[in-house]
C-alpha cells in the first residue's frame, strides 16, 4: 500500500462559495509538492493556481515565500489555506 500524507485544505471567505465546503482533508502520495496540490485543486474545482484572485498559504506563509515555491514538499498535518486577495482599509 502506497504511503500517503494527509493535509487539511481550508477554503476561506469567498473561496468557500467556489468549493461549496469550508475545509477538507486530502491525501497525497509521500513526496507530493504544492504543485500536486495545485493540480488537484484544478481538477477538483477548476481552480487554476497561481491565480491573482486567490491567495495561498502553507502553514501560515505564502506558497511563493518558500524557497522551493511550488516544488515545496508537503508533510503530514500541513494546513493549506486559500482565500481571496486581501487589502486593508
Amino acid at each position, binding site marked *: 500500500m502506497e504511503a500517503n500524507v494527509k493535509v487539511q485544505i481550508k477554503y476561506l471567505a469567498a473561496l468557500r462559495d467556489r468549493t461549496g465546503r469550508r475545509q477538507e482533508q486530502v491525501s497525497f502520495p509521500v513526496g507530493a509538492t504544492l504543485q500536486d496540490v495545485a493540480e488537484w485543486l484544478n481538477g477538483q474545482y477548476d481552480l487554476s493556481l497561481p491565480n491573482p484572485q486567490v491567495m495561498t498559504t502553507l502553514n*501560515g506563509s505564502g506558497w511563493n515565500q518558500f524557497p522551493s515555491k511550488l516544488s515545496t514538499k508537503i508533510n503530514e498535518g500541513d494546513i493549506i489555506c486559500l482565500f*481571496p486577495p486581501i487589502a486593508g482599509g
Partner: protein
Amino acid sequence: MFEGGYLGKILRVNLSTREHHVEQLKENEVLKLLGARGLAAKYYYDEIGPEVKPFDPANKVFLITGPLTGVKLPSTTKIGLSTKSPETGIYLCSNSGGDFGPQLKFCGFDGLAIEGQADDWTYLLIRDGEVTFSDAGPWQGLTTDKILEMLKEAMGDKRAAALSIGPAAERLVRLSYINVDTRAIGRGGAGAVLGSKRLKGIAVLGSGSIPVADEAKVKEIRRAAIEELRETRANHTKYGTPQYIEIINELGCMPTRNFQTAYFEGGDKIDAHMMREGYWVRNYGCYQCPVACGKVCEVKDGPFAGARARTEFETIGMLGPSCGVDDFSAIVAANQLCDEIGIDTISAGNAIALTMELHERGLISSEDTDGIEAHFGNGQALVDLVRLIGERRGIGDLLAEGMAHLAREHPEWSRYILAVKGLPFAAYDPRGFHGNGLTYGTSSRGACHNVGGWTIRDELQTGQYDRFALKGKGVLVQAIQDNRAYVDSLGLCTVVRGSMNFRDKPKGDVLKAVTGYDFTSELMEIGARIYNLERMILNREGIRRKDDLLPERITKEAIPSGPTQGRILTGEMYAIMLDEYYEVRGWDEDGVPKPETIRKLGLDELLALDGS
C-alpha cells in the same frame, strides 16, 4: 495652471464670530502636497501649534478634499481631516467617504476650515457660497443619524450631504467620531473637537460642477475602472470587509480577549458567511462607488432583535473576539449604539476589552462598572459598557478620557493597555505579522493600520517580507505608508485605487486627465513629503523614538495558543525593524527627519524653514 479637479478656494468659518470668508488655495502647496491629507497637514502645521490643547477654541478642524473628490470616477468620495486629537493629544489625520466632500466641491470649495467656539449649540448650512449659522440647542442629546436627518430637513433637500456628532461628543468623550453621511471620521476623537466647539453638524449642498481637463479621457478611464472593479472586487461587494474575519483568525492574528491570544475559537459564529446568511439586509455604497462594500445588518430575533448597524471588519474584530463575544447579534447591537451615541467602534472595543480583563483579574469590581458583569463573552455587558462610556458613568468616565489618560492615571494597568501614542490598536495582532507592529509604531496618528500602512498582503506573498522576518520591513512599511499618504490626498477610496493604478509604482493618466497636470511620476515622492511633514509636526509636539514603541503585551508575552502559538515581537526584535525604518526614511536614531531629508523633499522651502 490646473485645468480641472481643483476649485481653488477654501471656505473658512469662525464659530466664535459667526463670520466666514473665502481664501485662495495656494498652488505651490497643491503641487507639493496634492490635496486632502497632504494639504490638511500643511494647514495644521501652519495654524495649530504644539501649545494648543484639543478643546481650546484655538484648535481648528480642517476638512480638505482632493483633486479627484466628486469627479465622475469610481468612489471619488473622500475628504481628509486634520485637527489636534482629544484621544492622543497630538496631530490627527483622518478621512471619510460619504457625499460631504463631493457636495463641498459642488459648492465651489476644495475645503472647509472650522475655527473658534460657538457660545451655544450651533449647526451650519452651506448652500453654494451661502453660509448660515443656526441654533442647534434643541438637538442636544440626539443621535448622530437623527442629526443627519434634521440637517437635511433644515436644508430642505434630501440630496444634501451632512456630518454630525452624537451625545458622547457633547460630553467630550475623547473617543467620539464624526458621522459623515453614515460613514465615519472614526479614529482619534475628532467628534469631541466639534463637541468642544458646540458644533452639532453641518449640511452642504452645491449646484456647481467640477471641471476636468479631458472629459473624454475621464469617461474612458471610468468605464475601464468599473469593469475591472466588477471582477476584482466582487467579493467585496458580496461580503465587504467582514470577509477578513475568517482569514485573519485562521492566520492567527485576531485580537482575542484584549490581545491575550490571537485565535478566536468562536470565529465561525461571527464570520462573513454568518453575517450574510443571518443578518445582511442590503449593501450601501459611497459616492459613485460600484463596489458598495458597506453591509447593513439587522438582528431578527433574540434579546437584541431590531438592532441594525453597518458592520465592518475592524468593528467586528474589536467588539467581538477582543471582547470574547461570539454572538453576532450583540456585536450589531453594540455597533449600533456606538454609531448612535457617536463613539469610534475600534477605540470602544479596546476600552471594553480592557475593562473586561481588569474585571476578570479583580483589579476593578462591579461597583466600578455600575453593576455590569464585565466578563469576556458577555454580549449584554458589551452593549451596556458602550453606554457606560458614552454616558461617562462609573469607570466609563475614566475610559472616556482615552488610553493615554488611563495609563497616566493607572500606570499599573499599562501592561493590559494596547495602544501607541494613546491610540488603541486596530484588529490585527502584530505578533502574527511583524510588519504590522512597525505600522502601529510609526503611524502618524498612533496604532492605526491605515495611516500606518497595511502590510499583511505583502507579508504573505513576497518572499523577502515573510510575516515573521524583521529585515526588510522598514523598506516595506515606508513604501506602503507613502503610497497611502498620496492615495489619501487624492480624494479616492483606497478600496478602488488599484483599478486606477494608484499603487506604490503609480502609472496611468488619471490625474493628467482630471487636472491637466501629470502628477503621476511624483506621487510616491509627494507621499514621502506628506509623511515627513506629519513627522515634523509630531516631533514639534514632542514625539520621539520612545513614543514609537509597542506595548508590553506584544513585546513581553508570547501568543499562548492557535496557529501563531509561541510568537512574540520583543523590544529587541522590534528595534531591528525600527532602526531600518528610520534609516530608509532618512530620520535620525531618535526618529527626527535629518536636515538633508527635509531639503531633499523640498520641505525647507515649503515650510519656509531657516537654516535647514
